[in-house]
């Protein structure tokens, strides 16, 4: 199968999967009882009228097509239980930068560290340096991210008072500014541990595997120094699986971390999602569910396809 044809097939399949998942979620969410109306009298009547106008009382099929029609017009509905009467899309657009900035900082710091540790451990395989790094990675990788968040919060925010507990708001500082960076640092550090450990482990395993290859021996035999052989042959081949992993980290920054955003009260998309679930705002819940589903699907697709681009020897769609 030729490359463009394969890509097209995968994209179509992805859209199909997304359609089915979205439909399933839509139906399941719409089958839930509407949130109880808390206000009384006139206000209650207003809400009932509003729901009528939004088509909540129409048959499910009608609502379904109406929803998609609006989505294609760029309208994801209005907030009901939170951000009342505000457009879901604009609120999501407001929150997204926080998530992206925090996670972007975190992986930009974590990736070089993770790669460096991984490469170092692989080059010192079965020596004490490797054992120390591998053991540390094992421990760091296993401990849940929220435990780091608690540790960072306790030691860096309470005990030493170096960092503030909350993230600076957009009114106080630009997204790309020192103030913002400093206020986000506890969250960035907490997120970084897992990424560093994961990348170190992966890099070590891949590079160690490559280093045992015969062609590396050949490279040495033909007169390359050890460092030449490693940078020109071993690292390049080890990068074939490592780069897609890094790529997936970059796509993952859109989704962010639900739990870290909650612990550090970052007004990002993850926090919005959890709030939407807890207060039962179905329009937000639906929109963000679609968003998260789409991120996962796109990430999977991009990773699969990236192998072909990074290493031309890998033929896409070949049996």
């Amino acid at each position: 199968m030729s490359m463009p044809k394969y890509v097209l097939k995968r994209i179509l399949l992805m859209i199909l999967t997304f359609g089915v998942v979205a439909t399933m979620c839509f139906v399941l969410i719409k089958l839930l009882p509407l949130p109880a109306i808390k206000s009384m009298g006139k206000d209650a009547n207003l809400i009932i009228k509003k729901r009528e106008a939004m088509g909540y009382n129409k048959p499910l099929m009608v609502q379904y097509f109406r929803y998609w029609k609006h989505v294609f017009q760029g309208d994801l509905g209005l907030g009901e239980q939170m951000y009342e009467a505000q457009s879901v899309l604009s609120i999501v657009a407001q929150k997204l930068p926080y998530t992206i900035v925090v996670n972007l900082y975190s992986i930009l710091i974590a990736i070089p560290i993770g790669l460096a540790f991984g490469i170092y451990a692989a080059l010192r395989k079965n020596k004490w340096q490797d054992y120390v790094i591998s053991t540390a990675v094992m421990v760091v990788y296993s401990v849940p991210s929220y435990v780091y968040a608690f540790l960072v919060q306790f030691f860096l925010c309470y005990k030493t008072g170096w960092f503030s507990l909350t993230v600076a708001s957009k009114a106080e500082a630009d997204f790309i500014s020192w103030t913002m960076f400093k206020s986000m640092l506890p969250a960035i550090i907490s997120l970084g541990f897992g990424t560093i450990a994961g990348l170190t482990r992966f890099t070590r395993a891949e590079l160690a595997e490559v280093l045992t290859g015969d062609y590396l021996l050949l490279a040495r035999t033909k007169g390359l120094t050890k460092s030449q052989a490693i940078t020109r042959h071993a690292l390049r081949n080890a990068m074939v699986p490592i780069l897609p992993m890094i790529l997936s980290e970059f796509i993952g920054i859109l989704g962010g971390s639900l739990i870290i955003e909650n612990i550090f009260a970052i007004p990002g998309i993850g926090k919005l999602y959890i709030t939407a679930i807890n207060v039962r705002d179905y329009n937000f819940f639906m929109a963000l569910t679609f968003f998260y589903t789409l991120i996962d699907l796109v990430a999977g697709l991009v990773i699969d396809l990236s192998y072909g681009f990074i290493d031309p020897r890998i033929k896409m769609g070949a049996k």
Partner: protein
Amino acid sequence: MDRHDYTNIPKEKFALARHGEKITDKQLDTKPIGYFRDAFNRFKKNKSSMVAAIIIIFLVLFAFITPFFSDYDVSARDGYYKNLLPKSKVFAFLGWDGCKESTETQAGYDYYNAIGAEIGSSSVKEVKSSFVDEISGIKYYVLDVDTYDKVGFTYVDLDEESYLALQEYQNTTGLQVCYPIPANYKTDYVAVGNAANLWYKLAVEDSGSTGEAASHDADGNPIYEANYLMKKSATSAKYNSLRLILDCDGTTTDDEGNPLYAAYAVKNQTGYRVRVLYSEYYNYINGHYADHLFGTNQHGQDILVCLAYGARLSFLLAFAVSIINFIIGVVYGAIEGYYGGAVDLIMERIVDILNAVPFIVVATLFQLHLAKKVGAVPSLLFAFIMTGWIGIAYRVRTQFYRFKNSEYVLAARTLGAKDRRLIFRHILPNSLGTIITGTILIIPGVIFSESMLTYLGIVNLETSSLTSIGTMLSNGQAYLSTYPHIILFPALFISLLEIAFNLFGNGLRDAFNPSLRGADE
């Protein structure tokens, strides 16, 4: 007779081959090693995995056994013993003594010392230092206060029957529970932790009092002077039981020279208001003194027992999920991999779709739809089962693709083995190692996800007699700066568990890999 009729050969035509010859082959002198025996032998050599396995066993035993041996219960909440620090009799010398450092003014110093002065053992374990604030000129004390003893006294309202029973208890055991009522018992002190502790003469005798004693010596140490409610009769309010030595047993007199006695109770509408030493009263009610190895949380629940209950719930959930996912995954993956073709294509699309739904959505929808009908825990179980088997099915499917066309399977099929026999007897055992490893590694994943969902409040498993690790974490987070021990133990538990399971899983993966046989010999 037909030469080729092999079915009816007469018995006498048979003869033993090589009868009477000496067999020179040596008999096998070692026992055959089966697949699991071999794996176990390899696993035993991996020290870190063995340690991890022991830790896991210990944690599981902790979760299941602790509730039976503990004096406490999740549903037991104590209004006075809140936020107690961990206390261990054995490790008290390591600072595990239930004491908390606090910086107090003169009033606080007087207040804490007064509790000790009345009962004879001080709640202030150590005065570390004192300093005078340069700006305000106020003197501060840095104290090591016992969080158990600092509760001190409290008023309890008893009906006649229990009041008499309490006196009876005092008389038989000789333990002093009731203490004299202070003269100021009607005043509503707002600035002090517990007004029942103000038994001494105060510098300021009104509701605004900070608990500062009336007089101090030259070093600033308080001189306590008892300020009890005095009555003319020794047995006023029907008190006929133990009395303090230091109180007024008729030695003090009123203006007219009549002897006065300290009152141990005052009558109110329903019975008697008694001032009790809380630690003794606790012992009287519960049959043991408060002694919390991991301390208590903000609701006065014992953290050790909460952790055990939470861990037990997590383990049960995780074990159930991994067993069910194992079964579904194996059957699904086997059918996919064995039949291939159109069946595989359709089943893979179903997997794709289920896999595309974020887990948090699955958990939320199950919770919103089912929690009211079947309960929070079963709906969480369903959510885990919904997508959890996909990993196992994927492994099984890959293994089936690898083995289904090999010669031995073909041979078995030629001999007439049915599909079911081929799947479960011939192909599946090949991949059992990886499947078991995968199944075991579901457990830490489930425990982590469960703690995350309960932490975020998406799933609420907390009832009066049930708690979960995630709930404990989210409750403890609010007290992270003041009482970090509340969050420390659940966080430590889950970290240890995850590390142990990952190490264990690694060891298991290596052990089940026959290509590593003899690799280290």
